[in-house]
């Protein structure tokens, strides 16, 4: 019976695999099994599936140790008894082979029947073949019907457009770091896309434009997620069935599939996250040979991938936290190992600082350097940045301009607010309407360049024309009392104890006086932030505040839009709260003064660190600005793991080509169940251990896999999911997918362990083996079948909606909230 089952399985796998390892005859295995492990089938089965065997090079003594750590696969190089990080010398044989994915060494060396070289060769080839199969299947599903629909889907309109901006070298602004879009642009460039498609709105036809390069690039990275997950699970659990289950879950998940098929940042982000995780796991298993070549390789690769993840989206921070946690606990263990000298620990620490902090930071900065170098033309992103920044962009009116450097009395200037999207200080001939403060001339801020933005700096006490050539040039200094006269209307910037039109707690700002003659309410003290008294004031670079002399308030803009009487420009107020906020800080942009020598603005150009800092500030502010409105439907984090609601990628009506981003419910609900089961099982085991229960060696090995490997994955899931509950910004369903990858890997490990535990608890070995095989197979096949049911979601469908019995999705709308 036992042999029959395994033969059956062998036959089945052999059909799927071109080079299935068939090292040992099933008959021999059966016999041996009875001999060594009564009532404990897993080892053999695993043996059978992985074709595991001992290397002849293993010294006898070590082999003995390894054999004790029986429950095999799980225990890996014997970490059952060691700490998280296997100590030096414990698992020698394994480490020599860490590099290859096939080398998931298992220690169950059978010294008695050592297979020959040929069969070993076969088994290694088999494991390679299995990996190849997984990869192939993943690529096949991701690239199938990649060109459909031939129109812009969902956020392709953003990221495709941004890719084009790189090709056209036009400056733009986005809330995410640049790496992902740069890669998309690069892929498009290499595949012959010329950057001419406009990507205006979802639904636009691509027509002759070559979009396949960009989609193909994203699909390529998306396809790699599956083999990565496979390898991670294999490395953590040393169990092929677990890895296979994970691979199946991800391959057959419609959500991952959909998300990988379009020009989006998510496949790129997930690629880097998984690559970082994989290299971290790999370098963990090199821990017993520190400072060896593979160790350095994986360690620095982790750093590179971290930089990649953070460079695509800021949520890459979560994987950094995970790697950081892993590193800290690793160092803590090393530090507690008294056999290591402090100097050695110091070396470890330095290596990690170099590879995991310095290297990623350098790479991350480098992406920005490339970003700013490539995007050197003025474009739609200019307005978000400061005047000094804009001077860098060719095509902008500040580029290559030359203006006087220091402000002097008589200069004509424009004053720009430092907060994003507020604009220039502005006034015009219209008065504030009746009932709104004093009926004097309006002062607002205005985003566009205009003659009404020009102001003349005058001394507060004389009205003499400072441009009179007989007078010497007098520079404006920090702390001076000045008057600002509006050039077009000759009224002074003025404030007084009247309520501002919209912000009731602030004072009104008006234009007052005739031909420059007003009253003492026109006097302002000009101050440069963080400077000493007496310093001159620089164009562009100085951050200035204007403080009203009489009331002591600060000139600022509330950012609120005035009603129609104010031409929907923004409100300017004088705020009595003296805190330094960007709303009340200004800089001088244009500057005309015939008496002063012009200098090229290049001198004033910000340095690279300043540019870097500024673009981060703008991005963070942009992200915080994405707030949901009350009356809109928004996706809530709790919706995600339950697969409560999908996202429409394309199409609404029954005549459209419809693509709907929704996880395969079977996979997702299995994941959800697995997390609950994992927590339950984990706490039972932890309590049992804490109570001092003695677990049998086999169970001990399994629990180690469950607690250590599973624990890392659970941490990954938590880190990639729970922070979203704290985020104020608008959230979307696709934010969950990195967490979903971790959750699927946890599912793989959990079910494999559960089945092994269950099989172990059964008395009859044949029943146990049968149960294990049937359990794994049914999970695999069930997932595959559910994919067959739900695949139209990802590959697109035309025809009636799901309510209609003729629809391909008829009867599959299991939740009312899904609309496809």
């Amino acid at each position, binding site marked *: 019976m036992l042999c029959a089952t395994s033969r059956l399985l062998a036959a089945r796998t052999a059909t799927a695999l071109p080079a299935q390892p068939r090292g040992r005859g099933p008959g021999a295995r059966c016999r041996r099994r009875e001999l060594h492990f009564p009532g404990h089938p897993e080892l053999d089965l695993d043996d059978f599936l992985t074709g595991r065997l001992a290397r002849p090079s293993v010294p006898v003594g070590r082999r003995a140790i390894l054999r004790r750590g029986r429950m095999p696969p799980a225990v890996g190089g014997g970490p059952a008894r060691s700490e998280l990080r296997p100590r030096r010398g414990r698992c020698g044989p394994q480490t020599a082979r860490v590099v290859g994915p096939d080398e998931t060494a298992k220690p169950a060396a059978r010294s008695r029947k050592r297979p020959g070289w040929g069969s070993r060769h076969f088994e290694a080839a088999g494991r390679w073949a299995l990996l190849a199969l997984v990869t192939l299947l993943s690529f096949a599903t991701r690239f199938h019907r990649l060109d459909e629909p031939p129109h812009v889907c969902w956020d392709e309109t953003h990221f495709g457009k941004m890719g084009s901006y790189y090709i056209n070298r036009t400056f733009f602004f986005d809330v995410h770091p640049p790496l992902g879009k740069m890669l998309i642009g690069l892929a498009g460039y290499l595949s012959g896309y010329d950057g001419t498609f406009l990507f205006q709105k979802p639904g636009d036809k691509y027509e002759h434009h070559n979009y396949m390069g960009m989609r193909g690039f994203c699909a390529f990275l998306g396809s790699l997620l599956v083999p990565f997950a496979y390898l991670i699970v294999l490395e953590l659990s040393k169990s092929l069935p677990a890895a296979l289950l994970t691979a199946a879950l991800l391959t057959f998940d419609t959500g991952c599939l959909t998300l990988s098929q379009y020009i989006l940042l998510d496949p790129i982000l997930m690629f880097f996250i998984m690559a970082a995780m994989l290299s971290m796991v790999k370098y963990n298993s090199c821990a017993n040979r520190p400072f060896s070549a593979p160790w350095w390789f994986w360690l620095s690769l982790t750093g590179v991938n971290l930089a990649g993840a953070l460079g695509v989206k800021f949520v890459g921070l979560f994987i950094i936290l995970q790697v950081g946690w892993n590193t800290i606990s690793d160092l803590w263990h090393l*530090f507690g190992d008294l056999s290591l000298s402090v100097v050695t620990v110091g070396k470890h620490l330095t290596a990690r600082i170099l590879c995991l902090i310095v290297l990623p930071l350098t790479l991350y900065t480098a992406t920005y350097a490339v970003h700013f170098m490539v995007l050197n033309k003025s474009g739609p992103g200019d307005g978000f940045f400061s005047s000094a920044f804009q001077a860098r962009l060719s095509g902008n009116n500040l580029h290559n301009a030359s203006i006087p450097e220091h402000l002097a009395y008589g200069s004509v200037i424009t004053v720009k607010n430092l907060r994003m999207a507020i604009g220039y200080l502005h006034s015009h001939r219209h008065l504030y309407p009746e009932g709104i403060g004093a009926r004097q001339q309006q002062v607002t801020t205005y985003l566009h360049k205009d003659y009404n933005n020009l102001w003349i700096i005058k001394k507060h006490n004389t009205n003499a024309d400072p441009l009179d050539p007989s007078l010497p040039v007098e520079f404006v200094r920090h702390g001076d009392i000045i008057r600002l006269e509006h050039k077009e209307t000759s009224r002074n910037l003025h404030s007084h104890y009247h309520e501002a039109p919209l912000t009731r707690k602030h004072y009104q700002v008006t234009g007052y006086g005739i031909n420059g003659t007003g009253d003492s309410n026109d006097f302002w003290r000009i101050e440069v932030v963080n400077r000493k008294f007496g310093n001159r004031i620089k164009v562009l670079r100085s951050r200035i505040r204007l403080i009203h002399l009489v009331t002591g308030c600060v000139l600022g803009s509330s950012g609120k839009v005035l009603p129609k009487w104010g031409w929907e420009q923004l409100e300017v107020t004088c705020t009595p*709260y003296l805190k330094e906020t960007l709303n009340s800080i200004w800089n001088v942009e244009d500057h005309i003064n015939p008496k002063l020598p012009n200098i090229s603005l290049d001198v004033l150009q910000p340095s690279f660190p300043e540019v870097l800092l500024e673009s981060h500030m703008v991005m963070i502010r942009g992200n915080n600005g994405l707030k949901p409105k009350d009356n809109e439907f928004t996706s809530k984090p709790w919706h995600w793991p339950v697969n409560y*609601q999908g996202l*429409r990628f394309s199409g609404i009506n029954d005549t459209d080509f419809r693509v709907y981003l929704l996880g395969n419910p079977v996979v997702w609900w299995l994941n959800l169940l697995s997390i609950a089961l994992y927590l339950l099982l984990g706490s039972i085991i932890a309590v049992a251990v*804490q109570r001092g229960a003695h677990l049998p060696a086999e169970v001990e090995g399994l629990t180690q896999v469950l607690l250590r490997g599973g624990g890392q994955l659970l941490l990954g899931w938590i880190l990639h999911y729970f922070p979203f509950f704290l985020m104020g910004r608008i959230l979307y369903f696709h934010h969950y997918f990195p967490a979903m990858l971790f959750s699927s890997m946890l599912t793989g490990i959990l079910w494999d362990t559960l089945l092994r535990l269950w099989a172990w608890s059964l008395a009859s070995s044949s029943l146990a083996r049968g149960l294990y095989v049937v359990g794994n197979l049914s999970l695999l096949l069930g997932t595959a079948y559910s994919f067959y049911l739900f695949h139209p979601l990802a590959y697109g469908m035309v025809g009636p909606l799901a309510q209609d019995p003729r629809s391909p999705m008829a009867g599959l709308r299991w939740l009312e909230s899904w609309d496809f």
Partner: protein
Amino acid sequence: MLGFLKHPVVVTADINLNVVALTAMGLLSRLWQLSYPRAVVFDEVYYGQYISFYMKRIFFLDGSGPPFGHMLLALGGYLGGFDGNFLWNRIGAEYSSNVPVWSLRLLPALTGALSVPMAYQILSELGFSHCAAMGAALLMLIENALITQSRLMLLESVLIFFNLLAVLSYLKFSNSQKQRPFSPSWWFWLTLTGVACSCAVGVKYVGVFTYLLVLAVAGVHAWHLIGDRSLSNVSVLCHLLARAAALLVVPAAMYLLFFYVHLSLVYRSGPHDQIMSSAFQASLEGGLARITQGQPLEVAYGSQVTLKNVLGKPVPCWLHSHQSTYPMIYENGRGSSHQQQVTCYPFKDVNNWWIVKDPGRHQLVVSNPPRPVRHGDVVQLVHGMTTRFLNTHDVAAPLSPHSQEVSCYVDYNISMPSQNLWRLDIVNRDSDAGVWKTILSEVRLVHVNTSAVLKLSGAHLPDWGFRQLEVVGEKLSRGYHESTVWNVEEHRYGKSQEQKEREVELHSPTQMDVHRNLSFLARFLELQWRMLTAKSDGSEHKYSSSPLDWVTLDTSIAYWLHPRTSAQIHLLGNVVIWASASLATVAYTLLLFWYLLRRRRKICDLPEDSWLRWVLAGALCAGGWAVNYVPFFLMEKTLFLYHYLPALTFQILLLPVVLQHISDHLCRTQLLRSLFGALLVAWYSCACHVFNTLRPLTYGDKSLSPSELKALRWKDSWDILIRKY
């Protein structure tokens, strides 16, 4: 059994005179001239109005915290015989004679005073010397900010009291765990921990951080207990169950109890009603209940109803229509259907009435017997005053161009046929044949032709729409959202056939009688939800500050200024204590890391018991500081210096811990130790001196001259008020 006959009954009193003295000093410092500024001081203006609401039994909603704190303040008012008649509108307003200022301020002052001896107790329970414990209490005693905050009708001192009580009782409990588990005192302290935690949460939500800290410490201790092999499985289970009951069940029950008392105290309708759902409003006395009392429950064909949006944001409003039509062309050049406007109107109005009509019949009155409308039925809605049908069609809405316009159909525009059939979707139905119920049913109106859903978009229409709110047909309704859900608020069975009579009928009030009530749990859940989602007006405040300013005391708050002299009350900390407490926290952290690293290398600097004491003290004091401080960085509301006081209290407790540790373990010779002791005395006198200097600003009892005030302005950012004469 009858032991008392054989032996004399003896009561041994064990009085720690230190505690008595500390309590007395605490009371003196907090209660002295308690009713002195007989005027509204700072946030009293805010809490005072809630006290008045309690006195008048009027329902209110305050998103800033659960009701227990407010109730405690109101208790003071109740005991002082306050009738609630005072207009809390201005800081600095003189209290009228009916306001019992002393008793209103008594409770916060008492809790503030008791915090002083509690600091002593906590340090002794932590196993530190009597000297260190005295030090902690004396520091609490002369902390100006704590005194100021305790002497007014504010809640921070109450919160601090319950925080400390929770920590103290947990320590007492865990100390008695070692000797006599399951003894009465063990149970007492365990339960008191839970009760104190729930009280802290009940006063302010931030109390939850201390609760979590205590839970975490209890969790770690319980985990050690599980690992204790000398205990049987059953006794471990008993231990765990007792803890779970006292630390999880009791607080939850207490929290519910606060709301129960709150809801039974404030049963009258008041100014905040509008925020609540119709059902909640109807459960209050007066207000909506007076109108809806006795309405027929089941909506029938021919019913006259008003429909209220369930979300009610930005303002609660009712479905409304009026004679005016949509402008032919909008300002941006788009066209409209030019039919009658349908809006959402935030005031009661006769134009809010709609008649539910059966599409198959012409009658607009209720038949006898009434035919109830059920889930899934198709209905028409007729506007009562204009007799036009609620309609939507494929025309972009005025402000939300992605949604459909909703109008009352006018038949002059023949190119646009009427599409006025709506399917009723009762969201909270019991069964698929559920009947549409007044107030209780939440319904969605789904348009039959286009399957658009009637929705409040939240945008204000321009002047042509009288600034009312826009109502649209949402085509892409992704699942449930409260803005698409409506409920019937006012309801009566229509009787008049003729339009003229009907208009008269619509103008007359509805009257009939049945009584409805919501269960406590439903009311609690709704109230709690509204409190948590209530938006604080994120307006900036002159004295708001950021958490970074707090540690260095870079900010102050002017609480009150005497109307004539320059006597004033300021929230200002004792600079010496703040600085040294922060230093102590840094020192503790560094030392802890140092010891941890050395222990990892198997070098133990401290004996095991003093190491454990050091760690536990750090977990509770430094941990208490961290959990009460760090979360503020993530909060988006307006923050003030007084939010730091709970964290500061824990930091003050940490100070003597660090000092004693330095003296015991780092001063190696007797000489050094004596020197250190002398230094401490000097330092404490310095703190006393600062306390004394700032005292006029703490109590506000002495008018200082401008030059003296200027001399007190030690930091530029302190906003001490100086009168210009």
